[in-house]
């Protein structure tokens, strides 16, 4: 639309889904501002509000709710390009998830796959998918089918509890998605049914059971599951005197690695900053309104790391 002078994007590593557990952790604000930051850095960005049924990215972005939304795409009344509206911010297009259509708010797996396929073929460099709260299939499926997943949490027990629940659900769902390819459905079914007797309490335990059945199979499945490597953002992280919430991020990553067998990586932390509150109330992204606020500086750096990581992950896969 705006800038077609750039080379054709690297095909992969460009769908980034943001999700994870509890509402109110700052997912939508993080996603919107990151999308703006990337657009400002010259990337052609499409921001998709995939919080079907709870969409409000348009408000954070400060645009009027578009007349055409994802529900028109899901209902096959419009193409994805049609529903991607140009925002006042150069390089940034926006797909609204604001839906009044219950059916569209609960797409089935095929519809989600179709949506993802079409999203993947959009003409842009980066696609940011803002997912809703919770561990429902909508959220988890989009999170898994994207090229990269980012979890946003607050350094609070409630938020962290939900993040772990989300990770466990996503891990199992990913395992279920490949069970046919590896013919391990029955094995997983039996294992899950007898999980107490078999001592299955963490994702790592399920992989162990597969290993025990057939070591090479276990290794192959493990390798496929190693592709599940979400990134973690701790929002409103306080670093003051004895309190260092950056440690919470490191602790979560370490605990996931050691006790879950999930390779969670720390993308970074964002400081608490009143600039966020002011910007939301004024209905514009804080990164535009107050680009020098501590939170804006931290977010800009984080968005660059996110892009670096996307290309790196793609190469390592």
């Amino acid at each position: 639309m705006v800038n077609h002078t750039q080379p054709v994007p690297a095909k992969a590593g460009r769908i980034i889904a943001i999700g994870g557990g509890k509402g109110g952790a700052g997912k939508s604000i993080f996603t919107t501002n990151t999308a703006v930051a990337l657009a400002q850095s010259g990337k052609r960005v499409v921001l998709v509000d995939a919080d079907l049924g709870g969409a409000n990215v348009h408000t954070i972005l400060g645009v009027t709710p578009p007349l055409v939304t994802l529900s028109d795409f899901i209902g096959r009344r419009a193409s994805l390009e049609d529903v991607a509206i140009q925002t006042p911010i150069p390089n940034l297009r926006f797909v609204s998830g604001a839906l009044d259509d219950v059916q569209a708010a609960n797409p089935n797996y095929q519809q989600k796959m179709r949506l993802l396929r079409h999203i993947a073929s959009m003409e842009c460099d980066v696609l940011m998918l803002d997912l809703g709260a919770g561990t429902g299939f909508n959220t988890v499926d989009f999170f898994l089918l994207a090229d990269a997943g980012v979890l946003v949490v607050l350094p609070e027990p409630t938020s962290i509890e939900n993040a772990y629940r989300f990770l466990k659900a996503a891990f199992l769902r990913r395992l279920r998605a490949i069970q046919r390819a590896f013919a391990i459905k029955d094995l997983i079914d039996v294992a899950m049914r007898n999980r107490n007797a078999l001592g299955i309490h963490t994702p790592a335990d399920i992989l162990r059971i597969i290993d025990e059945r057939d070591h090479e199979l276990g290794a192959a499945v493990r390798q496929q599951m190693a592709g599940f490597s979400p990134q973690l953002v701790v929002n409103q992280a306080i670093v003051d005197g004895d309190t260092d919430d950056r440690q919470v991020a490191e602790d979560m990553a370490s605990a996931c690695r050691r006790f879950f067998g999930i390779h969670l990586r720390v993308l970074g932390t964002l400081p608490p900053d009143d600039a966020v509150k002011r910007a939301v109330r004024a209905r514009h992204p804080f990164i535009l309104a107050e680009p020098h606020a501590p939170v804006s500086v931290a977010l800009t750096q984080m968005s660059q790391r996110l892009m670096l990581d996307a290309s790196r992950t793609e190469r390592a896969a």
Partner: protein
Amino acid sequence: MERKDTSQEQAEDVADSNSQRWCEILDVTPGANTVELKAAYDRAIALIDGKSVGGYLMLDPIAAQAARDDVERAYQELKQTAPVAPKADEGDAKPTSPTVEHPDEMDAEKSVPEERYSSGVPRRVMRILAPVVGPKDPPSKEPAKKRPTIAIAKPAAVTEPPCAGEKERATTSAASPEASTDAPEALPVPAVKLLPSIPPERAVGEVNVITAPDEERFVIRDGDEINGGLIRRLRESRGVTIEDLAKTTKVQKSVLRAIEDQDFDALPARVYLRGFLTQIARVLKVDRKRLADGYLDFVERHGSRN
């Protein structure tokens, strides 16, 4: 487990892999000194107990107990050989956990025969699995060839996967929604063998593929479109059948065929397809990234439906 017939060399390998596992559990680098170990131990316990908010409700009570056991064990094991830290640093080790010095688990530990740890699997696995395994499980008599540290005692039927899922596999795409739980109850409970987890590269990388001499092998040339036909030619020129490929990659034949046939509807989702392509490339000994990227690109260009 009865692993007494392993050679001295194998025993050393096992000791090494145990030590590596303990380091992973404590999240320390090999050779960490006593003070570093103690600090790592305290951090781990705080995480498991949820005293650090980052570990809050991560583990259910049983898993937490098991993790605690692992951490205790790792600490005790590593402490024995750890270098003593310089005196000046010793003040840093402040006990932050109530279970630090003589937790109850450690007493129970003493009655457990040493060889139970020989596989590198922490005690919790053995304890939890004990009722399932039973004492009758015969030890592997065959010396393992490819990976000397691991005795693989596979049930005879295991190379062929269970076939209950066979029919539905043919009709549905591999990336499935949450599975139903209607599998027959009578399925064999997994034959449990205690094996250390090993890095996937080691396990999958080495496969015996009958290969043609290099000059006869079909290779990917610049400008080649990487599609199903090309993957088939790569495979056939190496004398690898679909069956061989399924056996070595552990990926079902139906998925491999769908890839070669460019049956887009039957292909798994992109993120999983990448993993399968990588596994295929590894077996066929071609550039993994090139094969995976090329094929995914091909799918994107030709496979997008409605």
